[in-house]
């Protein structure tokens, strides 16, 4: 018995049994927990969001929106987004009913012709309002769409992290994603996306984390396209959880006429 124990310690020391092996089964659990913390905090959320789309040349575009979210059961969520700026999208509103396991329902309101348009939502990797973030980066990716592997432990920004590699099961514009997930809060501090050539092409960083209503919230985040030099910085100017948003807000009525109480 003692001999086995010594052998095990020796194996561990020589790296033959690495933490990766010990954590293998935990990878999915860690990603799950991280998604809950990052995409599902509270029962609902109200936020005023400013996105800066910055080109390599330094040219900037701004997108200013109010985002309302409400969690349903079994991972379902509802999102309502109202655009304040710039002029060509001002007054537009976007409603998403997100389901786990099937395509989202998405509606877009176009104020200039008072039209509620149902939009095809197949490709969640499309750019979100022209930014470096995709729809999935905003509302989450199906955990079963990837296989998850525990790579190692690491420390960034002085915080100990789990490092997880997620590989898409079906063809996606990236072939693998490596995530640094804070061991304490489970907030993803950094994601690296690698393309088909195995080269790094996109990096996500959580730049500022605050405690809001007792919950950790990423109030500043950046997605950099390493190849094009284009980046998007997102600042949550105000954010609140558990504010009591009614189900009725996520309806055609409020798409056509935003709910003043929640939008301001």
């Amino acid at each position, binding site marked *: 018995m003692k001999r086995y124990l010594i052998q095990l310690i020796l194996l561990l020391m020589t790296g033959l049994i690495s933490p990766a092996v010990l954590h293998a089964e935990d990878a999915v659990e860690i990603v799950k927990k991280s998604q809950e913390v990052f995409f599902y905090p509270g029962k609902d959320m109200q936020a005023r969001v400013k996105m800066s*789309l910055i080109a390599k040349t330094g*040219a900037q*575009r*701004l997108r200013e929106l109010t985002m309302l979210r409400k969690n349903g059961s079994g991972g379902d969520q509802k999102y309502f987004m109202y655009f304040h*700026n*710039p*002029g*060509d999208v*001002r007054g537009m509103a976007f409603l998403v009913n997100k389901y786990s396991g*099937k*395509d989202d*329902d998405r509606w877009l309101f176009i104020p*200039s*012709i*008072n*039209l509620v348009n*149902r*939009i*095809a*939502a*197949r*490709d969640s*990797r*499309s*750019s979100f*309002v*022209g*930014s*470096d973030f995709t729809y999935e980066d905003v509302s989450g990716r199906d955990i079963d769409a990837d296989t998850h592997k525990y790579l190692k432990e690491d420390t960034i920004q002085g915080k100990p992290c789990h490092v997880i590699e997620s590989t898409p099961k079906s063809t996606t*514009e990236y072939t693998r994603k490596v995530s640094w997930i804070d061991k304490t809060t489970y907030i993803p501090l950094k994601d690296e996306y690698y393309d088909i050539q195995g080269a790094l092409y996109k990096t996500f960083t959580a730049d500022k984390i605050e405690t809001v209503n007792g919950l950790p919230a990423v109030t500043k985040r950046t997605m950099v396209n390493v190849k094009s030099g*284009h980046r998007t910085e997102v600042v949550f100017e105000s954010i609140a959880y558990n504010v009591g948003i009614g189900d*009725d807000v996520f*309806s*055609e*009525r409020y798409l056509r*006429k935003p709910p003043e109480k929640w939008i301001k």
Partner: protein
Amino acid sequence: MKTLLFTITIILTISCASYAQDITFHGFIQSNISSRITGKETPDPSEGGDFLSGGDKIRAEVTGGSGDSDFALKADLVHDSISGNDEVNIREGYIDYRSTNYDLRIGRQIITWGIGDLLFINDIYPKNYSALFSGQPMEYLKTGSDAIKIASYSDTISTELVIIPFFEPYTLPDPKRFFMYSPMTIINSEKPRNELENTETALRLYRQIQGFDTTIYVYRGFYKTPGMRPASLTEAVLFYPHLSVYGFSVQGNFANGVLGIEGGYYDSRDDRNGDDFTTPNSATKYILGYSRQFWTDFTAGVQYYGEYMHQYNNYESSLPAGMPKTDNLHQLITLRLTQMLKYNTLRLSLFSFYSPDDKDCFIIPEIRYNITDSLWTEAGFNFFGGKDTMTFFGQFDKNDNLFATLRYEF
């Protein structure tokens, strides 16, 4: 009409004063030009020449309010370089009141119903086809109605009731500027008089069923495209026959895309026998549409549209010799392709209509670029084709035009 606008202006002024702290002001300055490239000039010298549209617009949008009520005023100051005219168009000007389960909107407003993409069955609200055919920004296809809209909401069923006291027809291309089929000189246009009995009413009932947006529509009013009654051998009078529409639409996710079906029965109340050739026959119209995202930032949509005329035999036998005849089933196929590029700042799009029975088409390739957040430009081509100069798109064959718009938003 003028009185209503005057009233709205007064109310808005008062509202502005009392809600001064919540006023927002936005708008844009826009230049637009469209030039025929077929080298043909229209016979009318006053507005003839190569240009179909050209001029500047200044849009002012004022919104404000507090609590349960607010208002919006969107007005265009328009300079038309071709006619030299300047005018103010109130695009929208309304007051909203909101209670727990009801909304009320009174004034000039744009209302859009139905699921069709540039095809309309249950959307019986005013449109401007002249704007579409001369390459003005797409929003100008729709124009405002002076109306009262009462909406109610519940989990079981939501409704919208629209009352339009003042009739407004579609704006169709003007023979002064467009080559088109116009066999007779129009000497008068008899719009329904502004009387209580001519008030149009439209009702929409909707709810979600199994994830599908399901809607029922009912309309009682008038055709918005005129009938033409001969006044003499060379002259005619335009008029707007009575119409009722009973329709439905269903739209939802299907086969990795969005599927939509819309249908409507057009009851031509003045010609139920279908033997008056000046008035449209009753018809059943339908749209079958499907759109899907095929790859990142690329969407394709197809629609199949049909218009089946009832009492076709009576129509055929009443039609005078030499008049253009429509088929019993008129069909259209549309295709829309959209590719977004360069972080959604560049949009390439194509919209096309094709009718297998009329053998005509209308194709609009377009490119739009957002130069900055406040400045965008758009350019495109309106191509009309057809074997016959008397079909809907075929008659515009000589009007192929290039258009461009530049808009600064503030």
